[in-house]
């Protein structure tokens, strides 16, 4: 890999995506939501909680769909880059970093700055960092869907399925499991299961910071025990990092041997 060429390519890709109308609308939308949530709720802490629920749905959805469409629309551009003296790895990682950087900037302007204005404490910081992680995780998953199929419609469908799975179906499955096996002690298994869903991991992380885990009953106490100390926090960020790296590496492997 040639880091110098990657930096240069990245610069042009970021400049292109930042000017994209959808990214501009996304930034404005996040900004409007954050500002109105903080101004409508009477306490900033409550505002943060409402914002959390919106972000956990919206950020993954927009990031995964926008990135998938961008990758398919860049098919000819990728072909042109492959015909240049560049490694495929450089091209793929530049596109990934370009999408991740631009969407992270959008998130930071739309959500990060309002949080810093209205709720600049540890919980606020955790929420900014977790949102940035979610952005990058879902860009990575989008690249995975784009590398799995040549067909744009199938790719977008796959991305929507991933999003549905992580934001709705996974929780439903876990609930189902809980009810089926309610006679058994499942708390530790629940902790392990939460690593299988980046959105769940983010939610647990922020809710514990907000100190409302008491609302979650006995499982909440177990979670508090595990995620509440610094080792647990570090471990959960390791989990989120794995959610960035693993899909990215699989997509890179696919792309390296792909016929364009």
């Amino acid at each position: 890999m040639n880091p110098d060429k990657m930096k240069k390519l990245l610069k042009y890709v970021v400049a292109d995506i930042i000017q994209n109308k959808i990214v501009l609308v996304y930034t404005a939308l996040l900004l409007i939501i954050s500002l109105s949530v903080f101004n409508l709720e009477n306490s900033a802490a409550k505002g943060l909680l409402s914002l959390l629920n919106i972000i956990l749905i919206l950020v993954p959805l927009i990031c995964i769909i926008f990135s998938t469409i961008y990758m398919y629309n860049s098919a000819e551009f990728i072909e042109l880059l492959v015909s240049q003296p560049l490694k495929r790895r450089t091209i793929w990682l530049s596109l990934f970093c370009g999408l991740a950087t631009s969407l992270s900037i959008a998130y930071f302007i739309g959500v990060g700055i309002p949080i810093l204005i209205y709720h600049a404490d540890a919980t606020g910081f955790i929420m900014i960092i977790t949102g940035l992680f979610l952005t990058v995780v879902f860009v990575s998953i989008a690249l995975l869907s784009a590398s799995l199929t040549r067909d744009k419609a199938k790719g977008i469908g796959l991305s929507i399925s991933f999003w549905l799975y992580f934001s709705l179906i996974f929780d439903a499955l876990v609930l189902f499991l809980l009810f089926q096996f309610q006679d058994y002690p499942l708390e530790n298994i629940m902790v392990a299961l939460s690593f299988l869903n980046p959105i769940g991991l983010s939610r647990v992380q922020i809710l514990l910071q907000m100190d409302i885990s008491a609302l979650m009953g006995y499982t909440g106490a177990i979670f508090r025990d595990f995620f509440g100390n610094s080792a647990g926090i570090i471990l959960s960020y390791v989990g989120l990092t794995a959610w960035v790296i693993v899909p990215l590496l699989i997509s890179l492997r696919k792309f390296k041997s792909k016929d364009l």
Partner: protein
Amino acid sequence: MIVTKNITKKFGKLKALDDVSVTFSKGECIALLGPNGCGKTTLIKSLLGMVVPDNGTIEFNQSSIKNKWAYRSRIGYMPQIGRYPENMTIANVIDMMKDMRKENNTAPDEDLVKSFGLNNMMQKKMSTLSGGTTQKVSAALAFMFNPDVLVLDEPTAGLDPLSSEKLKQKIISEKQNGKLVLITSHILSELDDLITEVFYMQEGKLLFHKKLEALKQETGEEKLSKAIAKIMSEQEAL
């Protein structure tokens, strides 16, 4: 310069390339001809490393291109359909390519940028350009870095007659500089004064690879289009 040995490529059941062995040498201008879907584009893409053949080897200057990328600094490629990131301007695209390829340390060749009048619209975004103007950008990029090999996929499709003539003149002058030029085109009449060899494919197989003069003598025709038509109709008769 480029040697392929027995390359085969399957897409599912379809054999896009079937045991193609060929040598392309310096200073030649070769027309890749054949009906739609005969494997021309797959052959070009294999040379550029976009498609990896199932079997066989491709050598560029006596070394295999498998898993290599640096050799592509010696190739200028003009795709059939160029699409660029929509918010980049022409200037952005050209600067980006210069950043990617400036290791050659020679001054970029901007003849086509000037003769196509692209320098007067450098700040226009790629998404606002017409198909023909986009083709002009692709052509200008292919010739910009003084490559030893030019690969042109349907170069004149979509260009107006004047620009198409300018591009032809540029191809002829590069050929005289000893470059290897590979062209695919369905407009045979405009290839007459460009090419020196004809490479004809059908259903993924190489049908013949001949000097243009030899082909004209065999068929007794003066024009390439007539010579090819004669061969194709003979093929059908068989």
